[in-house]
């Protein structure tokens, strides 16, 4: 008896709920697909084609009814999202939208990270880090905080400097103001040149090996097109020998090395030169002392050490190591040039002894 009553009560409650919700329930064959981040709903049910064929207000009414049903479903989903009252108790009800799921194409390709500049590479190798500078500097003259550079900088406007000291070893007749101006122009030009060089390097590095043969949206420059055209010409069965050429294109086949020639001596040419070269080679191979370019080896070792140290001591102060590293490297900096020239000079007396047999 009690069980039946409980069931009846539950059934009645359910009916009441259904009654309440009747105004907002919509019957659909297939469920809609929702993308709440975009406020989007997609209805896959085929619409009543026959009914919509006839023009006029009936069609409009049908379309409106369909729209009302779909909108009701979408709104129910939106109102079920977690909502809160923005701006206190009396504010408007605001719902948190999820991320949009419908994949739409981008406007522009994603940004590429730019390759490090020459200075940035050097700094990374040495372990030099940026010193944070204050934006304001104390100006003793004006007794206030002024900018480091720019409008009203500390130390006055450099273009209105009324005094230019003649440095110790300079020509007394020289115009110092002109010299300062010239040096500034040179500095600006050098900086601009370096900036453009870094840009060119970055651009070259970016297009060194095109992964896809050619960028589809037409951002191809002349060199890339030429390179790709060359590859396309050579990829025939006869390696491009019978490919038709454009009227102004060069007739001979382009070298695969791309212009960098490596010259080989003719086989039966200068016998004396060949003999001396072979004997030198034998002497170097047979000598007890190892042939070592000291400066090159030292530089290599130093660079390796510095790179390791920079990688290891990332958190610690770098100033000491930087000074030490720079001091040690100075004598060996031009070691490459000196080393290659020094070697034949050193060995010549010994070679003369053997060669003169």
């Amino acid at each position: 008896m009690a069980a039946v009553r409980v069931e009846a009560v539950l059934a009645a409650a359910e009916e009441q709920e259904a009654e309440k919700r009747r105004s907002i329930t919509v019957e659909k064959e297939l469920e809609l697909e929702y993308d709440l981040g975009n406020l989007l709903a997609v209805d896959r049910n085929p619409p009543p084609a026959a009914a919509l064929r006839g023009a006029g207000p009936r069609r409009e009414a049908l379309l409106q009814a369909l729209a009302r049903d779909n909108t009701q479903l979408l709104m129910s989903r939106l109102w079920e999202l977690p909502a809160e009252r923005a701006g206190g108790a009396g504010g408007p009800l605001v719902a948190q939208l999820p991320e949009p799921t419908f994949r739409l194409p981008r406007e522009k390709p994603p940004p590429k990270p730019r390759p490090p500049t020459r200075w940035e590479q050097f700094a990374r190798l040495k372990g030099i880090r940026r010193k944070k500078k204050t934006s304001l500097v104390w100006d003793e003259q004006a007794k206030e905080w002024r900018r480091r550079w720019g409008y009203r900088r500390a130390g006055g406007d450099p273009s209105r400097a009324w005094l230019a000291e003649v440095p110790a070893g300079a020509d007394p007749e020289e115009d110092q103001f002109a010299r300062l101006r010239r040096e500034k122009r040179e500095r600006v030009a050098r900086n601009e040149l370096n900036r453009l060089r870094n840009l060119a390097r970055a651009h070259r590095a970016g297009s060194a090996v095109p992964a896809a043969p050619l960028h589809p949206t037409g951002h191809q420059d002349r060199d890339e097109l030429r390179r790709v055209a060359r590859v396309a010409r050579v990829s025939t069965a006869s390696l491009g020998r019978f490919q038709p050429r454009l009227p102004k294109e060069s007739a001979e086949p382009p070298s695969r090395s791309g212009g960098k020639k490596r010259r080989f001596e003719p086989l039966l040419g200068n016998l004396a030169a060949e003999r001396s070269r072979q004997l030198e080679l034998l002497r170097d191979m047979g000598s007890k002392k190892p042939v070592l370019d000291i400066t090159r080896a030292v530089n290599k070792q130093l660079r390796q050490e510095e790179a390791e140290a920079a990688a290891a001591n990332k958190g610690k102060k770098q100033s000491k190591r930087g000074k030490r590293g720079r001091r040690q490297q100075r004598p060996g900096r031009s070691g490459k040039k000196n080393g290659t020239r020094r070697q034949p000079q050193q060995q010549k007396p010994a070679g003369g002894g053997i060669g003169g047999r």
Partner: protein
Amino acid sequence: LIYCYRKPKTKRAKRFLEKREPKLNENTKNAMLIKGGNANLTVTEVLKDIYAVKKPFAVVYKRKNITRPFEDQTSLEFFSKKSDCSLFLFGSHNKKRPNNLIIGRMFDYHVLDMIELGVENFVSLKDIKNSKCPEGTKPMLIFAGDMFDVNEEYRRLKSLLIDFFRGPTVPSIRLAGLEYVLHFTAVDGKIYMRSYKVLLKKSGCKIPRIELEEMGPSLDLVMRRTHLASDDLYKLSLKQPKGLKPKKKKNISHDVFGTTYGRIHMQKQDLSKLQTRKMKGLKKRPAEKSAEDGGATPKKSKSA
């Protein structure tokens, strides 16, 4: 800005360039509405109404531009570059293609997709005399009809229409402000676009009952020519950079009941030296302490 050969000399110029350069999270797409050489009244009205819907993320070009987008796209690409718009709507009219609208989008200032639609019935905003919703309302988009899934061209059209009318992406939205709905029905080779204003009526429970009132522009469209992007270009344009993926939170897990668990990794502790609560009664009295120390080292006395 990174690859600029001419560096900007003013902050304003720098801001201008920064707005237009490729970014991780992109700006809202702008649309440009262009009139062709022989645009008639209907097409002009359509463009004006779409502009009203898409304000402020649209620009209308007042003068007529004599170009044919399907033959030559350079003019469109030039406009796109100048005004930084990646969506466009080009209207024209001739005997062969009356009331023609070309809707399209760009990728990297080059045309990605273009679809030509013919307008058959057009009811403007002005013709329907009732209250409109405020400018800049984010519309709800509803697509009805199985054609939008079955047919490849219709699928691209759906993607284009969503892109066009979507508006800015927002993290949260005011529920009472959901007033505008755009409904697209694909039936019988035609696409019916209708716009309604949403009225929220009381219902028995929390979710309100919806009533619609026909408001804005309504168009009957027929698909004509298409110029869709190749598959690999489309895939390239869909590619999202890795930085946009949400970072995984480590050492946090959830169980079925919704409880959040966290993990803390500790080093090995010497339990004998653990700092416990101080119980005053158990405190060592000085007499006991000295007895325990026994042969304690005396304090080193300083030499005078």
